[in-house]
C-alpha cells in the first residue's frame, strides 16, 4: 500500500521535474525546448529564436511560423512544421496549470502528509522547489505572480466560489457579527499595524527607512487581508461548530473586499501626499470607503438579479445555462472594477444572492454542473496561487531584509488580531443570544492567516511613491509564509487541544427539520407575544417579503410552486435512500432481495431505488422499449413524489441510459413500428405516454377482435414481438423475474386481456405482453376503459409468481389445444397464467377453439426459439 503510493509519488514527482526540464532546458537541449520558458504572463520579452532550429529533431525542414520571420526559404512543401512560437504563451500557461495541479496530486497521494501539514503550506513548499529549479536554470525568476494575473484571472473564481457556496441562512443570521469583524476589524488591524509600525520606526527599531506614516498605513491595510484557506480546511476536517465556521468563513470573504477598498483609499492618500491632507480629504476618504464597498456590493446584487432573471428563460439552452453564472459573475467583477467599485465585494454578493434562485431555476443537471465546475476553477486557481507564492520567493531581486521591520510586522499582526477579535467579540456578545465562547475567540484570532491578496496588493504598490516597496513585498511574503505554514500547521492541534465545540455531525433527519421549522414559528410567536421586535421578527419579515416579491420576480413559477422546504428535504432524503439502496443491492449482487418483501410495504424509497437500478438490467432484458424516464415518472407519482422534481430527477438519472436504451431498442426491434422512437424524447410527457398507450391498446383490441373472428393479420402482428421478446428473455433470463416483478404486478390485468386476445395458450403471449406493459400501467385509469367491454372484472388478486407455477398446469388444462398452440413459452412467464384463467376462462376457451387450427402449423419455429432458452 505504502509502497504503491510511494511509487506513484515518485512517478508524479518525476513528471513534474520532467515538465520543468522541458521548460527550462534551453541550454542543454535547445532543439526541443527551444524558445523556452519565457513569458508566462508577465510579459517578459519573448526571445525570438530563429527558424529552422528544430529541423533536425523533426527530421525535415521546418519553417518557423512566427509571421515576422517569413517563409524565408521554402523549397518544398512542409509536411509538418514546428510552431512553438505560435503556441508558446498559452502552452506555457497550460503547462504551468498542469504542473501546479500535479503538485497537488503528488501530496494528496499520501493522506498522512496532508493530515499534518495544511495543503496550502505544502503547495508553497513545492513552489519553493519549483522556483528553485526555474531560478537555477535561468538565474532569474521568470515566473512570478503578477497582480494582473492574480486579480483578473485567479482571484475572481475563488471569490465567486465562496460566495456561491456560502451557507446563506447561517451567513445572514450572523451577518451583523461578520460585518463587524470584516469592516471594523479590518480597519482596526490596518490602522493599528500601520501606526504602531510607524511608532517603532520613529523609535528607531528598523533603521533608516524612507517611509512615512501614510505609507505605513498603506502597508498596514494591505496586510489586513485575511485568507484562512488553511483554517477553513481544518475547520471542515474537524467539524467545528457552525457559528465559528461561518464567522471565520464570512469574515474572510468580506474582508478581502474591505481590504482592497481600504488599500485604495490609503493609496489615494499616499498619492495625495501628506501635505495636502486635511479634514475634508479624510472625510472624502471615509465616504469613498463606504461608497466603494457598498457600491460594489450593489453591483453584485444587480448582477445577481440579472442572472436569476436570465436563468428563468434558459430552459431551451440547458447545455450552456450553467455557463451564465460564470460569465455574469465575471462581468460583475469587471463592471465593478471598471466603476472603481469593489470588484471582490461585487462578485461575492453576486454569488451569495443568486444561488437560491438560479438553483431553483436551472435544470438540476445544470446545478450540478455549476457546482463542480465552480470547484474545479476555484480549487485549481487556489492551487496555482499557492504554488506561485512559493515560486515567487525564489528571486534575489525582491529580497530586502530588515530584521526589525519583519519581526515587528509579525508581532503586531498577531497581537492586533487578537486584540481586535477579543474587543469586538466582547461588544458583540452583549447582543448575541449565544455568546461567542472564549475558545472560539482564541481560534478566531489565531486563524488570521494572510494570503495571496496581501501579496497581490503589495506587488501593486507604486515604487515611485513607496521607495521601500521591495521591503514591503518581502515582508509580506514572510508574513504569508509564517502564517500559512506555521499557524496552518499548528491550527489543527490547537483546535483539538482547546476542544473547540464541534458541530454535532448528524445525518440529515426529516424530523429535525420539521421541528426546526416549528421552533422558528414558535420563536416568532413568542416574540410577538412579548411585543418585542427581535431577530426572529426580522427574519420572518424578510422571508415573507422574499417569498412574495423576490421569488416571484426571480424564480420560475413552476419551480416556485414546487418548492417547499420540508418537501425538499424529504425529497433529498429519499434520493439518498435510493442511492444507498442501489449500492446495497449491488453489494449483494442484485436487487433480488427486494422481492421477498415487496408486498404491501413497497415504500417508495425502495421503489425509486429499484427503478434506477432497473435502468441497467432493462437494457439487456426486454422492457427496453420503455424509456426509463417514463418508468420513473410513472411509478413515482403513485408513491407521492413531487412530479416536477421527480421528472427532472428521472431525466437526470436516466438520460445516458435512455440514449443507450433507445439504440438498443432500435437495433432489436426495428419491426416494432407501432410508435416511433422519437416519441421517447427525454421530455416525454404524460400525454404522450397515454397516447402511445391508447394506440397500442387500440391495435391490440383490433388484433384481439380479428383474432376472435378468425382473421389472421392481427395475430401476426402480435407474434413478432413475442419472438423478439423470447430471444431477449433468453439473454436476460436470470434477472428477468425479479426485475419485472415489482411493477409487473400491476400489469396483470393487461396480461389477462392479452392472454385472451391471443387465446391464452401456455402464456407465452401473455408473458410477452406483460413485459411490454409495465410502462403503460401509468395510465391505470385508461387501461380499463379500453378493455372493459370485453372483460368482466379486473383480476381480483395477484398471486405471487412462485405460487403461480404449480397452478399453471391446472389452469391450462381446460384447453389442450391452447396448450399446444404455444409450446415455446418461456418458463418464467408461467406466473401470469393463473391470472388469466381466473378472470376470463370462458373467453380463452372460445378463442382457443377458434384459433387453434391456425396455431398448429406454427409450432416448429417457436420450438426453435424455445430450444434456445
Amino acid at each position: 500500500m505504502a509502497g504503491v503510493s510511494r511509487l506513484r509519488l515518485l512517478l508524479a514527482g518525476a513528471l513534474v521535474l520532467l515538465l520543468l526540464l522541458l521548460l527550462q532546458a534551453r541550454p542543454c537541449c535547445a532543439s526541443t525546448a527551444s524558445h523556452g520558458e519565457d513569458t508566462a504572463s508577465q510579459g517578459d520579452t519573448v526571445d525570438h529564436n530563429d527558424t529552422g532550429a528544430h529541423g533536425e529533431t523533426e527530421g525535415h525542414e521546418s519553417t518557423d511560423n512566427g509571421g515576422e520571420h517569413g517563409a524565408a526559404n521554402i523549397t518544398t512543401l512542409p509536411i509538418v512544421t514546428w510552431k512553438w512560437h505560435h503556441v508558446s504563451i498559452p502552452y506555457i500557461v497550460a503547462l504551468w496549470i498542469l504542473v501546479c495541479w500535479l503538485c497537488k496530486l503528488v501530496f494528496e497521494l499520501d493522506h498522512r502528509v496532508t493530515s499534518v501539514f495544511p495543503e496550502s503550506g505544502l503547495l508553497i513548499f513545492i513552489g519553493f522547489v519549483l522556483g528553485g529549479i526555474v531560478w537555477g536554470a535561468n538565474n532569474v525568476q521568470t515566473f512570478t505572480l503578477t497582480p494582473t494575473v492574480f486579480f483578473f484571472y485567479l482571484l475572481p473564481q475563488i471569490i465567486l466560489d465562496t460566495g456561491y457556496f456560502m451557507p446563506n441562512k447561517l451567513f445572514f443570521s450572523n451577518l451583523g457579527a461578520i460585518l463587524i469583524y470584516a469592516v471594523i476589524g479590518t480597519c482596526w488591524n490596518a490602522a493599528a499595524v500601520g501606526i504602531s509600525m510607524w511608532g517603532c520606526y520613529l523609535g528607531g527599531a528598523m533603521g533608516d527607512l524612507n517611509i512615512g506614516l501614510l505609507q505605513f498605513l498603506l502597508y498596514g491595510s494591505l496586510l489586513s487581508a485575511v485568507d484562512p484557506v488553511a483554517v477553513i480546511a481544518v475547520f471542515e476536517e474537524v467539524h467545528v461548530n457552525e457559528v465559528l465556521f461561518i464567522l471565520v468563513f464570512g469574515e474572510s470573504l468580506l474582508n478581502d473586499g474591505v481590504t482592497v477598498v481600504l488599500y485604495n483609499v490609503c493609496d489615494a492618500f499616499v498619492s495625495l501626499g501628506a501635505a495636502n491632507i486635511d479634514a475634508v480629504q479624510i472625510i472624502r476618504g471615509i465616504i469613498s470607503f463606504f461608497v466603494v464597498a457598498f457600491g460594489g456590493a450593489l453591483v453584485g446584487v444587480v448582477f445577481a438579479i440579472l442572472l436569476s432573471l436570465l436563468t428563468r428563460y434558459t430552459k431551451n439552452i440547458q447545455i450552456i445555462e450553467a455557463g451564465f453564472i460564470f460569465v455574469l459573475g465575471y462581468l460583475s467583477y469587471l463592471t465593478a472594477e471598471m466603476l472603481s467599485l469593489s470588484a471582490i465585494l461585487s462578485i461575492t454578493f453576486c454569488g451569495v444572492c443568486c444561488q437560491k434562485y438560479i438553483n431553483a431555476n436551472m435544470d438540476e443537471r445544470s446545478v450540478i454542473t455549476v457546482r463542480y465546475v465552480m470547484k474545479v476553477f476555484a480549487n485549481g486557481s487556489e492551487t496555482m496561487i499557492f504554488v506561485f507564492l512559493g515560486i515567487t520567493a525564489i528571486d534575489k531581486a525582491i529580497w530586502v531584509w530588515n530584521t526589525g521591520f519583519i519581526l515587528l510586522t509579525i508581532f503586531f499582526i498577531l497581537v492586533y488580531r487578537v486584540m481586535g477579535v477579543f474587543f469586538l467579540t466582547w461588544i458583540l456578545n452583549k447582543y448575541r443570544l449565544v455568546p461567542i465562547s472564549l475558545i472560539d475567540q482564541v481560534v478566531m484570532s489565531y486563524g488570521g492567516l494572510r494570503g495571496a491578496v496581501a501579496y497581490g496588493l503589495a506587488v501593486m504598490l507604486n515604487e515611485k511613491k513607496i521607495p521601500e516597496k521591495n521591503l514591503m513585498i518581502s515582508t509580506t511574503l514572510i508574513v504569508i509564509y509564517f502564517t500559512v505554514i506555521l499557524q496552518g500547521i499548528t491550527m489543527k492541534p490547537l483546535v483539538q487541544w482547546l476542544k473547540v465545540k464541534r458541530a454535532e455531525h448528524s445525518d440529515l433527519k426529516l424530523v429535525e427539520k420539521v421541528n426546526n421549522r416549528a421552533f422558528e414559528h414558535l420563536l416568532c410567536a413568542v416574540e410577538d407575544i412579548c411585543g418585542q421586535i427581535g431577530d426572529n421578527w426580522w427574519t420572518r419579515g424578510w422571508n415573507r417579503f422574499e417569498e412574495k416579491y423576490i421569488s416571484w420576480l426571480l424564480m420560475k413559477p413552476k419551480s416556485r410552486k414546487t418548492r417547499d422546504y420540508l418537501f425538499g428535504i424529504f425529497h433529498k432524503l429519499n434520493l439518498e435512500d435510493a442511492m444507498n439502496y442501489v449500492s446495497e443491492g449491488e453489494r449483494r449482487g442484485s436487487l433480488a432481495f427486494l422481492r421477498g418483501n415487496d408486498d404491501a410495504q413497497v415504500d417508495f424509497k425502495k421503489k425509486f431505488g429499484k427503478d434506477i437500478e432497473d435502468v441497467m438490467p432493462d437494457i439487456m432484458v426486454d422492457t427496453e422499449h420503455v424509456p426509463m424516464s417514463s418508468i420513473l415518472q410513472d411509478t413515482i407519482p403513485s408513491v407521492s413524489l413531487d412530479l416536477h422534481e421527480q421528472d427532472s430527477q428521472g431525466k437526470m438519472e436516466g438520460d445516458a441510459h435512455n440514449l443507450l436504451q433507445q439504440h438498443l431498442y432500435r437495433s432489436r426491434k426495428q419491426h416494432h413500428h407501432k410508435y416511433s422512437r422519437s416519441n421517447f424524447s427525454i421530455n416525454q410527457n404524460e400525454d404522450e405516454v397515454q397516447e402511445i398507450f391508447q394506440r397500442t391498446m387500440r391495435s391490440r383490441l383490433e388484433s384481439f377482435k380479428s383474432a376472435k373472428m378468425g382473421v389472421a393479420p392481427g395475430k401476426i402482428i402480435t407474434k413478432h414481438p413475442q419472438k423478439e421478446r423470447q430471444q431477449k428473455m433468453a439473454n436476460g433470463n436470470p434477472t428477468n423475474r425479479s426485475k419485472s416483478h415489482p411493477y409487473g404486478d400491476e400489469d396483470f390485468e393487461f396480461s389477462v386481456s392479452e392472454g385472451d386476445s391471443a387465446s391464452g395458450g401456455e402464456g407465452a403471449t401473455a408473458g410477452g405482453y406483460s413485459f411490454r406493459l409495465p410502462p403503460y400501467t401509468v395510465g391505470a385509469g385508461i387501461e380499463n376503459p379500453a378493455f372493459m367491454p370485453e372483460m368482466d372484472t379486473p383480476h381480483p388478486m395477484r398471486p405471487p409468481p412462485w405460487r403461480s407455477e404449480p397452478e399453471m398446469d391446472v389452469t391450462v388444462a381446460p384447453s389442450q389445444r391452447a396448450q399446444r398452440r404455444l409450446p415455446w413459452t418461456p418458463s418464467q412467464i408461467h406466473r401470469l397464467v393463473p391470472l388469466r384463467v381466473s378472470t376470463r376462462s370462458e373467453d380463452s376457451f372460445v378463442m382457443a377453439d377458434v384459433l387453434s387450427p391456425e396455431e398448429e402449423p406454427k409450432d416448429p419455429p417457436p420450438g426453435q426459439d424455445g430450444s434456445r432458452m
Partner: protein
Amino acid sequence: MGSRASSLLREEDIEEIKKETGFSHSQITRLYSRFHSLDKGENGALSREDFQRIPELAINPLGDRIINAFFPEGEDQVNFRGFMRTLAHFRPVEDNEKNKDPDAGEPLNSRSNKLLFAFRLYDLDRDDKISRDELLQVLRMMVGVNISDEQLGSIADRTIQEADTNGDMCISFSEFIKVLEKVDVEQKMSIRFLH
C-alpha cells in the same frame, strides 16, 4: 412602560417570579407592561381572545397552538405568573446557571422543558404520544398548499419512522428527545428577551 403597570406588580411577586423563571427584574417589569397592554379585559388575566388580538399571531401557522400552550389544561385564563412561566421556556440557557443550585429543581428553560413544550404543540390529546394524525395536522399548518395530502402523508410517515423506536407508529416524548438529541435545542428554542 407605564409606571402604572409596574406599580400593580408587587415587589414580592417580582421576587417570586424571578426565582421561578429566572427573568431579571427589568425583564419582568417590561413583560408585565406588555401583559397589561394585552389584557383588554383589565382583570389581571389574559384570555384566548386577548392573544388572538395580536395581529402577527393570526398569520403564524402555529399561532393557535402556541396560544393554547399558554393555558393550563381546562382553563381559559392565564395570569401573569402563568404567562411568565410559559415565556420562561424560551429564556436562553446561561452558562452560570447550568450548575447553580442542583437541588432547586429543573429550571423552566432546561433542554427537556423546552422540548416538552415543543412536544405539547403536537400532542393535542395529551396522551404523551404524537400520532400520525397529530403530526399531519401540524405539518399541514406548516407546509404550503402545493404539497398534496398524499405527499404530506408520506412526509409524516417518514418523520415518524425516523423517530419511532418501538414500532407503535407514534412518537413518545422519550423518542422525541432521543431523535432530537443532536439538535441544538437550547439555542433554537431561545430568544433574547429585552431588558
